[in-house]
């Protein structure tokens, strides 16, 4: 795949955001807020960082991505479609009966989906398993996991954190889409997990903190992360929920509620 410039990646991010708005609007359901916050992370992965082949989704040496925050499926589907895994026209079937684009990712139904997620807290463990298989097979692929600040509430996240560090799991790079909200309210008002970076450091993960919408910073940080041996890596990406659409930014009403037809048109105008 030819290397895209930062400007071209930004255009991809705009395109993915347009899909997210249209898909959730057409489905009249879904999770636009947390999809928009994860957009740059997915764009950086699928259009620059990851070694993958949409024509051969089962290629054994491919890099893997586990979307642990499975409700951000619109962002994942849009990225997979634009990367060439399937026709972007299929995106309009999101959440419809019989569609491979299930409400939450289903690995059996859609090529490119590495793990079925939607029950929060599970993705990191699955990623560890993939990274251990890499070690046993002496391959060089990387496993990426996208988790979220809300997901830090889950006990399994911390089981996985402890175990990965103890077993010195590397080639495992997790992104924490820290968009400051979960379903009911701001994360700090539900079960405040701060200090977040200190927790990961205490669990012996190499920890980075970045602006999760700055593509250049994402690329640069992952290049650093790939060189780290004998230790898992987490990149805490500070993001804005609903990023890119003025009336959705920082507005938790759009956690799990789709935009109306009118709102879709307004958003698309902003994303031209």
């Amino acid at each position, binding site marked *: 795949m030819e290397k895209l410039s930062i400007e071209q990646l930004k255009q991809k991010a705009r395109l993915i955001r347009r899909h997210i708005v249209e898909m959730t609007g057409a489905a009249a359901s879904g999770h636009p807020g947390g999809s928009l916050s994860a957009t740059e992370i997915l764009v950086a992965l699928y259009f620059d960082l990851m070694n993958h082949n949409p024509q051969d989704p089962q290629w054994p040496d491919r890099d893997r991505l586990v979307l642990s925050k499975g409700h951000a499926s619109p962002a994942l589907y849009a990225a997979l479609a634009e990367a060439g895994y399937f026709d972007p026209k299929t995106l309009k079937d999101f959440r419809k009966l019989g569609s491979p684009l299930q409400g939450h990712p289903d690995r059996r139904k859609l090529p490119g989906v590495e793990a079925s997620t939607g*029950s929060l807290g*599970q993705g990191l*463990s699955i990623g560890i398993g993939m990274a251990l*298989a890499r070690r046993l097979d002496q391959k060089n692929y990387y496993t990426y996991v996208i988790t979220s600040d809300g997901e830090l509430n889950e006990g*399994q996240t911390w089981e996985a954190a402890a175990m990965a560090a103890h077993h010195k799991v590397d080639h495992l790079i997790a992104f924490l889409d820290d968009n400051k909200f979960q379903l009911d309210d701001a994360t700090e008002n539900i079960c405040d997990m701060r200090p977040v970076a200190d927790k990961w450091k205490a669990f012996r993960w190499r920890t980075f903190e970045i602006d999760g919408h700055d593509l250049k910073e994402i690329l640069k940080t992952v290049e650093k992360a790939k060189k780290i041996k004998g230790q898992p890596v987490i990149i805490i990406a500070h993001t804005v929920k609903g990023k890119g659409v003025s009336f959705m930014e920082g507005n938790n009403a759009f956690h799990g509620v789709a935009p109306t037809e009118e709102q879709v048109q307004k958003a698309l105008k902003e994303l031209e």
Partner: protein
Amino acid sequence: MEKKFGKATRDAYGEALVEIGGKDPSVVVMDADLSKSTKSALFGEKFRDRFFNVGIQEANLVGVAAGLASCGKIPFISSFASFLVSKGFDQFRMAVAFSELNVKVVGSHGGITVGEDGASQMSIEDIALMTSLPGFVVILPCDEVSARALVFEMAKHVGPVYMRTGRPKAPVIYKSGTEFKIGKGVRLREGKDITIIANGFEVFESLEAADRLADEGISASVIDMHTVKPLDTDLILEEARRTGHVLVAEEHQIWGGLGSAIATFLAKKHPCKMGFVAIQDTFAESGKAEELLEKYGLTSPHIVKTAKKILGR
């Protein structure tokens, strides 16, 4: 029926695992700090690079196994049935069953024959939980020989499998070398008046019960239904048609176990008189295994009593 003890089914599991691991390098074994008890440690001693002890954390254990399986490994994971099945259940549901991944699960110390450790360590609901997951094969062997053979079968089967093993030494039922197939029950006795279908320790109790019934002129079939799912419905139907009376004996909570599965099937295909020997919707307690089987109604005299009740004698 002479009672001669062989190894515990968990020992058979550990030994079989070492053999399977020696032949197939894609086998990876993990445990949650109970490997000395589940006997997966036998594999760990031999294949250190393919053995991971994750610590006391069942949810992550299951998730990591799913990740390994998605990359072509054959993970065998074990812990006590009570902890593994309940604490790993959402992960079995989502990451394994729904994901259709080839993960092998062995819950040891199943049932109340755990004994002195008491109710918190006793899994009496594992069969109900695991059979409820689409695509999972669920196995409960009765002795050393069948456990060993069925571990080999579960390794060959492509798809998720759960096996319950037991803590105490198990009475010998089979001759060494007997072959078993997943989903194929074994007729140990052929009778004409009643069919007793059992698994685990209840297989021996059922054979003993059949002897006592014979003394009273009642001829009983005894079936070892080691696979609860998929159920050997052909064999059940054949028996129900011939004897017209079916008794199910299991070391499991009466809700959702082998008895429920057979009753559901027979209600559709061949309604007949049925009886159930199982744990009657209660938790057990500390005690010796044999004392507990007696107190909670799972020994052969209880089977005899239930059989006679169904037969109206």
